[in-house]
């Protein structure tokens, strides 16, 4: 595309947090999920280095055959305690966590019903399971209730799968109502906390803290280790019988290598820091609110975002989203344009991820850059008709 560089697979030459370096230039960065700025924290790094010194970098094979390391058990115990669950199992991939777990839990006589904006891993897990897969309009729990009222009796097991915080729109479901619905329809409720851990709730505990819901009222807690927890992989926390089953039946666990020791150590240290330093969460919330207030004051569309870390600036038009992203990049702001098919038609956007480490000055100059660039683009005709 003329005058627009490839926004995908950009090469970062440093730890990419609130700022980054690309081709030698420093950018204000809004394309990192390091919500609490823990990637690179001295305690996290030290934990990872010590793990390498003691156990090396790899477990070489599946934990079933090559055995576990104390760090696996320590991380799983910490995550289980976080959700007040009996136990937990960690996978080496967040995507595989959903695919393998859902794929192992459901069968052809079952139903998975998920939010229309649920992550690809939930969709693929449902497909793999051979269960009937239905979706309800985004966060429309009346529709979910109606769907289950009319069709629950046609199936054996039913899984309702939602996300704690939706990564494209930055909004979240009514968890208390979901619990009520799943109980009334005898269904399991699975909540994917990939983006809500560290973000929602006063201490970042997640969507259950924000909603004031007992985490034991949710059947399956899923999350990832790569965002707030500065590692890599995913987890399922729940009753012992569920976790035990997944440890022997979920292909993504059984047939994958055990989690690399430094990654497990990093996640343990990051979770501990998150618990000890709730002021990070408060900073993230302040930054998110400040960004939102400034964007709204500029009359820009943030859709349904709840002003918690994930804040899209919706341009609706894909070309405008890409051009705006380029103009911001030229001004020293790195933010990713999101265009169909990643989002529905006419809802193209720039997706801003705020962290606790952004400064107010950074946010202010970013908003000014957005406003300036958006005015330059106008109705978008200038993108197609180059001016010489």
């Amino acid at each position: 595309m003329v005058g627009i560089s490839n926004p995908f697979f950009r090469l970062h030459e440093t730890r990419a947090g609130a700022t980054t370096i690309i081709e030698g230039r420093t950018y204000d960065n809004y394309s990192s999920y390091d919500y609490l700025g823990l990637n690179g924290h001295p305690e996290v790094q030290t934990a990872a280095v010590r793990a390498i010194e003691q156990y090396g970098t790899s477990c070489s094979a599946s934990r079933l055959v090559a055995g576990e390391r104390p760090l696996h058990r320590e991380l799983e115990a910490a995550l289980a305690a976080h959700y007040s669950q009996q136990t937990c199992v960690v996978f080496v991939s967040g995507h595989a966590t959903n695919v393998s777990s859902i794929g192992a839990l459901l069968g052809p006589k079952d139903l998975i019903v998920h939010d229309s904006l649920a992550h690809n891993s939930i969709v693929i897990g449902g497909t793999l399971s051979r269960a009937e897969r239905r979706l309800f309009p985004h966060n429309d729990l009346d529709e979910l209730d109606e769907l289950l009222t009319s069709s629950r009796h046609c199936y054996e097991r039913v899984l309702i799968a939602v996300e704690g915080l939706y990564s494209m729109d930055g909004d979240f479901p009514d968890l208390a109502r979901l619990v009520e619905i799943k109980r009334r329809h005898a269904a399991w409720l699975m909540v994917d906390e990939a983006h809500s851990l560290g973000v929602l709730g006063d201490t970042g505990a997640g969507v259950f803290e924000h909603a004031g819901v007992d985490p034991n009222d949710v059947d399956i807690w899923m999350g990832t280790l790569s965002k707030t927890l500065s590692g890599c992989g995913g987890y399922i926390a729940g009753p012992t019988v569920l976790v035990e089953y997944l440890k022997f039946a979920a292909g993504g666990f059984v047939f994958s290598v055990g989690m690399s020791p430094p990654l497990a150590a990093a996640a343990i240290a990051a979770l501990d820091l998150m618990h000890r330093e709730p002021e990070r969460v408060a900073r993230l919330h302040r930054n998110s609110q400040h960004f939102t207030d400034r964007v709204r004051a500029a009359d820009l569309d943030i859709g349904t975002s709840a002003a918690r870390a994930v804040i899209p600036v919706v341009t609706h038009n894909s070309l405008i989203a890409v051009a705006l992203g380029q103009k911001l990049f030229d001004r020293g702001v790195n933010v990713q344009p999101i265009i169909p098919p990643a989002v529905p038609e006419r809802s193209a956007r720039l997706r801003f991820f705020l962290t606790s480490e952004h400064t107010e000055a950074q946010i202010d100059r970013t908003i000014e850059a957005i406003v300036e660039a958006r005015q330059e683009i106008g109705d978008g005709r200038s993108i197609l008709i180059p001016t010489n």
Partner: protein
Amino acid sequence: MNRLSAEPKQRRSLPVIDQRVAAMTDFNTLPGMSEISVQRAFGNGGRDQQSVFPSA
């Protein structure tokens, strides 16, 4: 009053179908559980290390 009607009626808390559906939320009823019965017999995901076979 005949003999049958004199007997206290047995109350069912839930219709049979509801009990069957309710059981479907119990992870213990997963069809695949039977396939991993030996592994589960070790307990705690295999961590407890006790033998599945009775001692002689």
